[in-house]
């Protein structure tokens, strides 16, 4: 448990651990940076926090996300929109921006690690 924020260790998700080439915090940061390229379509931003993530909307609403398995239900709640990877407009937006194909680089102020 983190002594400052009181958060217990987050449970594991199936997507954790495979292909990880960085320390856990850096891995989380890289994942958040990548997820933000899609989440930006919904006006959301993911940041690392302790061994979890926080998801924030443009109005300041936030949610704690244990792992990437909890990301999309939280994103739908916060944005009030369906996050559908089969929606042609969403696919077209990802294709148009090459959002997930460009090199990874966390945006300034984003994907910070907490305590």
């Amino acid at each position, binding site marked *: 448990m983190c002594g400052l924020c009181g958060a217990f260790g987050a449970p594991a998700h*199936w997507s954790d651990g495979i292909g990880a080439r960085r320390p856990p915090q850096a891995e989380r940061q890289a994942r958040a940076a990548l997820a933000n390229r899609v989440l930006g379509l919904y006006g959301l931003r993911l940041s690392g926090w302790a061994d979890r993530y926080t998801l924030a909307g443009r109005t300041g609403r936030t949610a704690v996300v244990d792992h990437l398995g909890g990301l999309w239900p939280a994103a739908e709640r916060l944005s009030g929109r369906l996050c559908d990877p089969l929606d042609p407009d969403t696919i077209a937006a990802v294709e148009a921006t090459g959002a997930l*194909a460009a090199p990874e680089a966390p945006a300034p102020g984003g994907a910070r690690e907490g305590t």
Partner: protein
Amino acid sequence: MTAPTPVTLLTGFLGAGKTTLLARLLAWPALRDTAVLINEFGEVGLDHLLVAPLVGEVALLRGGCVCCSIRGDLKAALVDLHDRRRRGLVPPFRRVVLETTGLADPGPAVATLVADPMLRHAFAPGAVVTVVDAVNGARTLDTSAEAVRQVAAADRLVLSKTDLAPADAAAALVARLAGLNPLASCLPLTLADVPEAALLTDDPRTRAAEAARWLCAAVPDAPHGAVRAVLIESGPVDWTRFGLWLGMLLNRHGDRILRLKGLVAVAGVATPVVVQGVQHLIHPPRHLDAWPDGAARTRLMLIARDVDPALLRRSYAAFTGLPGAGTGAPAAGAGAGLPAPAGAPPGAASADR
């Protein structure tokens, strides 16, 4: 720490012959260290194997197996079984066979095993074995969505009562099952046949062989009503991109993804990763020691209801940054020229067809 005990799901529609099959299999010495979970004593045909009641809902079967009734709550039954084993109140067992009710969708049982934080340290999902009645199976598939889900979720299909069905009808049903679930093996049985114990075991030595069969599985051209198998193939994929895409897909469409199974070539990882899931749930991924056919390529099969294959492949291509392709109509976005992710070896997309 001991390895989690595999739980094999034995499913099949009402009257398909699940319990008859189970009773025959439990006669194998190799299956003596098995705990059987059933719904209720007295409702099934295992009573003739009962040797002695132990305590509460647990009884001993002839040959040394333990038999427990679930009484509605699978989690509580498994926790109780684990606790009894830990305290030495039941004979030790190395596997659990869960016989579901005929009307059950296997998804929630798999979800309980994969997602429950208490259970997942003690138990792991094993194979899904689905029994289909050669006489009534076709009619059942016509009329029951649960039966279609049971077949789609299967790792191993057993066609029972083949001696009672006309040969052409049985052959047509085998073809139909292969169209609905090309990933599962199919074992035809007569009333006199005794199937191999391996039907209920999860032997790590056979995993590579099973994976090799997935790689060779033919993808049927025709859908089964609204259900169809969709193949996605690509070169090595960035795992985080893949996880984001699959997590997003299952969150929104998990109820329509009846089964997902595949070998994933992960960029920067030399060995294949086995990914499989039922509906919203993904099993913990496993590494195989080597590529079954020597070539590192991602091959993902989804058995899905009401899903456009071209859109699925286009979505995969957009989110992973790799062209996704497979049997059927070409993906509209494939070849759109999204660059491969950084770190992917040269020729990452060359395995697409």
